[in-house]
């Protein structure tokens, strides 16, 4: 179970790191290199994004990575093969992140079954609210996979409890409104929001959207359990190459 794995790690570290890659960006070989580099630099879990042509919740950096990956001709099949290989090679939990149409077209039950076969632990599907998720939840539960749901800054307490009742593994908390990769104000207000999140669920909390450096991660310690770094790793990869991504990860904690 993903939650148990996270709790065991939290017994040894005061904050966990989750990173994100877009599979096939800029190409599959580099994606393998980035995963290896991130794992060796000590990340605790990873989101593997299956590229989608309409990534509505993503900002310009990840949007471009989705488009560039698709332009190389990458397929959902190749993404499964990629996930299977990294899950076999590295002993950290891997999650899929993608949009619902990718699951829907594949067949939600078949998708979950293959996720389990590949050794994945769960999925984040940002355009699938719990209201629309009956089939997905049943399939994920059947295969022992964690459906990760999201708390937004404007999610009220009642709804937080409803969402948490459907989720498992952890809850992904957005640090602010907007799309991925923009500036976030790590303020007292955000601390207050995380306290509300904590009160609404027993599940571990991850915080993402705009987390980019050591100071941000220090801020999150004690308020959430997992710091999520997404767009920043892609920016560093684009500007300084794979090795610099390892330096970024090592600088965070």
């Amino acid at each position: 179970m993903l939650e148990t794995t996270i709790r065991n790690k939290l017994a040894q570290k005061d904050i966990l790191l989750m990173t994100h890659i877009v599979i096939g960006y800029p190409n599959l070989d580099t994606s393998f290199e980035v995963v290896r580099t991130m794992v060796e630099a000590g990340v605790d879990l990873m989101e593997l994004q299956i590229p989608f042509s309409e990534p509505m919740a993503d900002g310009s950096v990840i949007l471009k990575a989705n488009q560039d990956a698709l332009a190389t001709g990458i397929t959902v099949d190749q993404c499964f093969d990629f996930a299977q290989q990294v899950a076999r090679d590295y002993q950290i939990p891997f999650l899929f992140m993608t949009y619902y149409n990718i699951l829907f077209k594949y067949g939600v039950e078949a998708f979950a079954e293959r996720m389990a076969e590949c050794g994945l632990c769960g999925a984040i599907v940002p355009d699938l609210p719990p209201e629309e998720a009956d089939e997905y939840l049943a399939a994920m539960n059947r295969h022992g996979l964690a459906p990760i749901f999201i708390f937004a800054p404007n999610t009220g307490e009642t709804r937080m409890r409803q969402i948490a009742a459907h989720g498992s593994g952890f809850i992904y908390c957005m640090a602010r409104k907007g799309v991925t990769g923009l500036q976030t104000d790590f303020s007292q207000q955000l601390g207050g929001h995380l306290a509300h999140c904590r009160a609404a669920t027993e599940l571990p909390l991850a915080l993402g959207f705009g987390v980019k450096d050591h100071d941000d991660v220090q801020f999150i310690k004690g308020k959430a359990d997992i710091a999520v770094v997404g767009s920043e790793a892609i920016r560093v990869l684009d500007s300084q190459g794979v090795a610099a991504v390892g330096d970024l990860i090592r600088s965070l904690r």
Partner: protein
Amino acid sequence: MDKRGYFSGFGGCFIPEILTQTFEELVQAYEAAKADPGFWQEYLDVMSTYSCRPTPLTFAGNLTNHFGGARIYIKREDLNHTGAHKANNVMGQGLLVKRMGKTRVIAETGAGQHGVATATMAARMGFDCTIYMGEEDVERQRPNVFWMERLGATVVSVRDGSRTLKDAINEAFRDWVSNMDTTHYVLGTACGPHPFPEMVAWFQSIIGTEARKQILEREGRLPRRVYACVGGGSNAMGLFSGFMDDPVELVGVEAGGKGLDSGLHAARLSSRDASIGVAQGYKTYFLQDGDGQMRDTHSISAGLDYVGVSPILAHLQAIGRARFEAATDAEVLEAVTLTMRKEGLIPALESSHAFAQAFKEAPTLAKDDIVIINQSGRGDKDIFTVADAFDDPAWKAFIQHKAEQYHA
């Protein structure tokens, strides 16, 4: 947690969590407006004093004689303010925005008609306004960009993806998830997450309600068939809703582009190339590949060049209530030419799809049958596209001369 906005399994509300509260508020405002007869009266007042409602129903005597079949009537949505049916939806949503107390509106636009209509509404009602438009459409519909900017709107040219309507919608959603406290997204068609398909169809139902009353006044009987072009599907939903409970055949006409076998079209319901998927917040037929990645679409008309289609139209097809056909770019140019020469009307390239299909079928109908074609918009905006299609030498000389003047 309820499922809402489903029609034969199409529709729904697939939105990121950050928008949940915004959609709750929107659904409440929409339902309150629907339950309030004063709201619809206010809407009718605006549409009859600011736009040109009721729009006329024109008998096309020359086209009727030319084809020798059914009596052809044309519903004149081109005579709305800003020249298209888009005004109906935009003014209705504008009144809702006032009720919700928001101060800024955003919109996507393909042909530019929805963007121009939104910009006029924002100017009149005092809202800030940003319009997202695919780079390819900015190129195709430059005059509308000019007018939006003159009206005070900010026009953002979207360079992502296929650089057309779907990409403009994605970008509008990205704006909305940052600014929903002050901003309403005026979605331009009967697509997207609930309540948009239903709400936009409600505002556009004014077309069908008028058309039904007008044809009964003129002819004392109902039409045999009604024709509307289908991009997202709002003008079709508008016309169809007036005849939903009547023995009238509803015909939607999609963009056949370079032909249904060419792969270069935007036919979701009338081709075999589309399949059911979930994108842009709703479930419907999309032109997508086996992995669920959206394909590039093609149409001579920017307004029909879209990967998805109204979930309510997908439902009407599923239950056998509406029929969907496609007209090719070439058929559309022929139809617009004939309509100009015979009736002195200039339908938009989008609307001309409905004309093209009606022209195929009119000769096969009896002389006492009636058909209504929805002229959803006027063609003036298409001057560059049509001039190129006919390779008009005098127009080219004019543009070259104008360019030299700017160069000097």
